């Protein structure tokens, strides 16, 4: 039987000269090795860092090679979206009528060629990336605030709020979403990016709302919440300190996957002319003239924005799935 190590108070075991036969504060690593306890390697246990849930999740995510690669690529896209517009400045709207349809990869001046008005395609793509990513992130923040907030309240308190949330979801699901956004945009007098973001956030939050509700419904019945209640914690404290941290994992996954949905939706709206107005480029409105470009055989003007869009959405989806696997290893 293993001996219970004495409390490390006072110079009990480590008296100079005596042979250490038990673990104590004074025993060195070498001495511990010399003890050779069967089964347990003392030094291995001692050096092992204590891994929390989130650190374990990060490690699991990094072991997922595809997801890590997608994250890197997404990082490159985001970096391009931030840095390139700063460097190129107004290049995205400077027209050069002498050099329209310059083919890509021919000169360093216009690396990805120019469009029908002689505007630099690379600068336009990067600026379009900025629009996509901005809309995606801001609208998801909206999802989290509205959906997370209402879902938490509905799940925690139940009652009429719960019913209202469910009916709202019924309504949203049965609406052709594109037409809703278009009608609202038209009603609010003109196409602005802020309108697009607000409308997407105001109509798309229900999925996160339902998830959050489901999480809260389960968690509020758990023992640790009852314990907190018994100890006299306020509702606010229970919601934020006890339930919310435990409810986060599926929300994060859903929010990540939501970003790709929003990016694609914004592109569809831009394609229809209901996102950011020209000359400001977005991947969607760069594609809206695809028929003219294809007729004139300028395929690169179609391939670049379409591929940028698909690649970004794919990366976000892969990262989202990686996070799902990392947060919930049982689901694999």
């Amino acid at each position, binding site marked *: 039987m293993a001996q219970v190590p004495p409390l490390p108070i006072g110079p009990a075991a480590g008296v100079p000269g005596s042979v250490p036969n038990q673990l104590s504060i004074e025993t060195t690593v070498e001495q511990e090795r010399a003890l050779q306890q069967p089964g347990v390697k003392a030094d291995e246990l001692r050096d092992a860092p204590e891994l929390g849930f989130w650190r374990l999740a990060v490690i699991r995510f990094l072991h997922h090679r595809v997801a890590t690669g997608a994250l890197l690529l997404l990082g490159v896209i985001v970096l391009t979206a931030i840095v390139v517009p700063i460097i190129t400045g107004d290049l995205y709207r400077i027209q050069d009528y002498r050099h329209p349809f310059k083919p890509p990869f021919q000169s360093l001046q216009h690396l990805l060629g120019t469009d029908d008005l002689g505007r630099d395609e690379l600068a336009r793509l990067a600026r379009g990336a900025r629009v996509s990513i901005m809309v995606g992130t801001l609208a998801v923040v909206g999802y989290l605030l509205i959906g997370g907030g209402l879902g938490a309240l509905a799940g925690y308190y139940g009652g009429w709020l719960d019913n209202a949330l469910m009916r709202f979801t019924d309504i949203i699901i049965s609406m*052709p979403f*594109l037409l809703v956004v278009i*009608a609202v945009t*038209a009603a609010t*007098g003109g196409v602005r990016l802020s309108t697009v973001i607000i409308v997407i956030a105001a109509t798309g939050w229900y999925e996160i709302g339902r998830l959050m509700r489901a999480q809260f419904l389960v968690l509020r019945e758990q023992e640790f919440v009852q314990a907190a209640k018994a100890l006299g914690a306020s509702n606010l404290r229970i919601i934020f300190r006890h339930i919310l941290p435990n409810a986060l994992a599926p929300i994060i996954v859903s929010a990540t996957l939501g970003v790709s949905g929003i990016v694609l939706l914004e592109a569809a709206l831009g394609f*229809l002319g209901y996102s950011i107005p020209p000359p400001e480029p977005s991947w969607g409105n760069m594609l809206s003239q695809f028929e003219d470009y*294809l007729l004139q055989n300028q*395929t690169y003007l179609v391939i670049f924005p379409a591929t940028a869009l*698909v690649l970004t959405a794919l990366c976000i*989806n892969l990262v989202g799935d990686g996070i799902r696997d990392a947060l919930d290893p049982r689901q694999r």
Partner: protein
Amino acid sequence: MTFYVIRRVAIGILLLFFMSAMFFALTRLTPGQPVSVGENPRIHQEQVNLRLHRLGLTDENGNPYPIPQQYLLYLGALVHLDLGDSYQYNVPVTKLLKQRLPNTALLLGTALVVALAIGIPLGIFAATHQYSKLDMTTSITSYVGVSIPSFVLGIYLLLIFAVFLKQTPLHWGFPLFGMHTGGVDDPLDLLYHMALPVTSLAILEIAIFSRFMRASMLEVLHQDYIRTARAKGLALDKVNYKHALRNAILPIITLVAIAIPQIVNGAIITEGIFSWPGTGQLAFQAVVDRDYPVILGVVMLVAALTVVFNLIADLMYAVADPRIRY
């Protein structure tokens, strides 16, 4: 069961009222009116007044009705399945919808059938052969499929088949029923016209169905009664396809019901790209023309269809799974 159906239908009708009110308010809040002297100086003010009165916007003397009253008029007509007149085509919206709906139903129905016929077997195979090469391929394809919106896929398809391979025209003209006649008599021609739009709509659904089917099948395959069936010595095929499949395929019913409004959403742009003369293109054109009665009509139609399909899905679920009772 009867009570449940009645309750659901009641909720559905309430929902339709709510949506019509919301959309009505939205469309009426937009500036401008369908007819004005400013747009066409050759018409008289009296004619404009008459026209606005016919559209249910003003009374006989040209004084605009307040919006709530306009809505009540609209509702009154809606009960008689009258969705008002289109601003653009000057014909009843219901007539337009009747013309276009068969085309859309044909396109979406085919896309759905194709997606089910490919997606579900693919998902089953991927689950029974987990981590095989085909499983991996299915996973990768479904990731890509989910990340490509149908309009981008449509553009890619046009790029490949019209520009690179020069097999199809870039701009489609349609000899279909509805606006034109005679097209349905030639099934091969119809098939040729449908190939690209159906593909661009079906890929997303194939991706969703196969992924969902795989997950659902895997979940069932790990349950105890499957192990029991195998331990009894039943043939693997019999276990997979008789015992597991029956339970795994149930959630697909809900998925199909949810997929229908999604496809309609995708069809709005896809039909526009391939000039398919369906309700999607009608809505697409109505958006461009700001033809609000038509937009409102399409929205109501989609909402009604969604409510009905959701109800059907829930009822079918109860029929398929005797454990569920309403």
